[in-house]
């Protein structure tokens, strides 16, 4: 029987550094109009440097949704969206951000009392979509374009799905090369679009400099995560979830190199001193699915109580400048395209399975937790296949539960408890059988 003592996850201390940067970013964004900056709405993978080079501010839709939820202000915008007719089965990030955007455009209705963050979103001057592996992303941006009366210029970079046709595999093959060329060409057009929106020629020097920063931060993060292949792991998936911002909407933000360097140093120091993320690591878990932001701290402690470290995840390890070596800051478009094309959601099933098997081997995974985010169907689409095939091919056991990114009405705590406990019990039984 799995014994659960109340133990706390030993979270990285340097993780806090990123909070300062996050606050600076939001401050800059909220005041963008006052400081004469144009505001671009984006969704999907990080494309901030494209705008930062032109001294424009950008809002990352998911980042905004997550921030509103982190301050427990998500209910009001979600209710506003639902009252407008947006079904609650739609992507909860989309519903949250659209609710906020509607507060900005349509005003706050009398019967709602939203928090300060939910109502401070500036209206967009342009919308840029760059969504890999999810049709919901562009549809969400189109809905935003309509909320603002179809007046906002919208550029959609189409990221083709990398299915794995004709023998193409991860970062290889005819399909991959065709896709890279296609995306690079669209980035060139995006740059022309941004010149028009910003009213000035593109600042390539600044863009190259920012992509140099992106590459460095990307490399530091991948190296730091790599150190967690050690047993016991010095940091966990939950630390890496917190460290997403510097490789997501904060990409290339001033101070991100120092913040990520500090994280890597702390991980190295822990490794040198035998300090682990979970006091008494017995099991190593892979988290499969998008993060459940409302439950991050709770989850981290929950697994620590079972002496289980969640060491890696598809969300953290297979996206967000995860291939930094492909970026040539002098000629950055190809590298950006590769990082976007080869991210977790955009890969066909056989490639996804192969990548997960490699990660499971590298991180000595005992079990997988499938978090089926109810309103992120892009993530959960392959869960059942992965559970079956990773068990068949590698003997890895798993459990699954439903939840969501920022709508906790889809989350049943009792069920989550039972499922995690059942997984730990079966891992325990497996270990005792030897």
């Amino acid at each position, binding site marked *: 029987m799995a014994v659960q003592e109340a133990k706390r996850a030993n979270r990285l201390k340097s993780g806090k550094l990123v909070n300062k940067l996050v606050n600076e970013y939001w401050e800059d964004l909220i005041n963008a109009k006052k400081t004469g900056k144009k505001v671009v709405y984006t969704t999907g993978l990080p494309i901030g440097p494209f705008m930062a080079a032109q001294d424009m501010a950008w809002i990352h839709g998911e980042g905004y949704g997550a921030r509103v939820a982190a301050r427990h202000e998500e209910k009001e915008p979600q209710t506003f969206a639902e009252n407008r007719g947006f079904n609650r*089965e*739609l992507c909860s990030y*989309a519903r949250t951000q659209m609710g906020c955007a509607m507060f900005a455009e349509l005003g706050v209705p009398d019967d709602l009392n939203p928090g300060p963050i939910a109502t401070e979103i500036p209206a967009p001057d342009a919308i840029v979509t760059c969504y890999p592996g999810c*049709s919901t992303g562009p549809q969400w941006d189109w809905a935003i374009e309509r909320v603002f009366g179809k007046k906002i210029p919208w550029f959609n970079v189409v990221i083709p799905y990398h299915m794995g046709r004709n023998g193409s595999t991860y970062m290889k093959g005819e399909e991959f090369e065709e896709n890279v060329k296609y995306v690079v060409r669209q980035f060139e057009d995006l740059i022309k679009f941004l010149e028009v929106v910003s009213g000035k020629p593109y600042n390539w020097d600044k863009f190259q400099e920012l992509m140099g920063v992106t590459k460095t931060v990307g490399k530091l993060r991948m190296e730091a995560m790599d150190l967690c292949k050690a047993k016991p792991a010095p940091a966990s998936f939950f630390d890496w979830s917190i460290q997403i911002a510097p490789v997501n909407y904060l990409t290339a933000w001033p101070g991100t190199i120092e913040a990520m360097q500090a994280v890597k140093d702390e991980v190295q120091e822990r490794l040198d001193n035998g300090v682990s993320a979970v006091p008494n690591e017995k099991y190593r878990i892979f988290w499969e699915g998008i993060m459940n932001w409302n439950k991050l701290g709770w989850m981290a402690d929950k697994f620590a109580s079972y002496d289980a470290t969640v060491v890696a995840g598809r969300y953290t390890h297979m996206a967000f400048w995860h291939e930094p070596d492909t970026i040539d800051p002098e000629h950055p478009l190809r590298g950006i395209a590769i990082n976007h094309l080869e991210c977790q959601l955009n890969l066909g*099933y056989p490639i996804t399975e192969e990548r997960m098997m490699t990660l499971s081997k590298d991180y000595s995974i005992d079990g997988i937790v499938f978090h*089926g985010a109810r309103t992120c169907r892009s993530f959960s689409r392959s869960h059942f296949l992965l559970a079956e095939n990773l068990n068949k091919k590698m003997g890895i056991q798993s459990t699954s539960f439903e939840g969501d990114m920022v709508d906790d009405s889809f989350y049943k705590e009792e069920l989550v408890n039972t499922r995690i406990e059942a997984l730990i019990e079966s891992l325990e039984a497996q270990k005792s059988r030897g």
Partner: protein
Amino acid sequence: MYQNLASDEILNKLTQIAADPYERAKEWKMETGSKLIGCYIMHFPEELLHAAGALPIVLQVKEEPITTGHAYYPSYFCGPTRSIVDQAAKSELDFLDGFVGGDYCIQAVGGSEVVGNLLPKVNNMFFRLPVGNQAWTQGDIVTGLTELKRDIERFADKEISDEDILNSIRIYNKNRSLIREIYELKSVHPSLLSSSDMLSIIKSSMVIPKEEHNEILESLIPKLQAKKDSIKEEGVRVFLSGSFCGAPKNDILELVEQSGAVVVGDDLFHGYRYISDNIAEDKEPLAAIAAHYIDKNTNVPCPTRCDPKTDWPQYLVDSMRKHKADQLVIVMTQFCEPHMFFYPDIKDAMQEAGIPHLLLEISHELDSIETIKTRLEAFVEMAV
């Protein structure tokens, strides 16, 4: 063979084909020894597959409950994608030689990944159809078509010439034109055939050789023409909208009519959306197909296409006026995200135009049929 049959008998035949949608295709495969390719589900250039000598069929949702498929695709995905996964899991799609997935919706992408896994022996192709409508979109669609053509040629071991494609375009255009003739008849004489009949016409067109279907329609249309003036017209004129990928269930269509309405037009994929426009026959064929994707989406806008130059809500208002429709019934497939994103705009447009509408969110399991019946009756009664 159909010439001697009455219109009702022909419609019955089509209903039989639609009820057992893969049977004729299987026979055809036995007869010809050629390849059968399933399309999963919307927006495929069937003409290209046909040009390779294969029979493309649009995979159909089965009304039976999902059972085996539950183990492969979560219950909070749309019914159409789950139904096809279920059919593959039950080995009901083993007769296919190939299938083509597409990127128009992430739920269809996920479903085709599962089907690819369940049917390892079936050739698994993919059609990349870039969304939007920018200066380069049409050219990018040509690239997607060229990639698919290459893959079909490898699979069918046959080079596809422009002449082959043009020939297929002509056959498919003819089918679209014939079905549009029936639509025109139904708009003026809505009681001439039921909406279930209309659905059978479209569904059967999706699953049998188009050449055969053209022959059937050529027999049917004159008979409908001859009958049209003898039909007594009454009922509230309703326009049906939505239901992407999966056809609306017959039960729902029957309920609409039993409530006292007649369906005068629709924008269903298993309906007018499928045949709204022809492909130009005087252009380079792949360019013509690519242009068709942009044009047909201007005619009947689709929310999966992300084309901000189109206006689906306004299209609905205009179509309803054209067909003199009194009310709009929206059939929304449960969990269909592209549709859900648009509902608020449709609602606003209808309110602004003073057109009453009813939203029916339909689960695959049809678990709220009694409520649907009551709501439909109350809605149609409003207009009487």
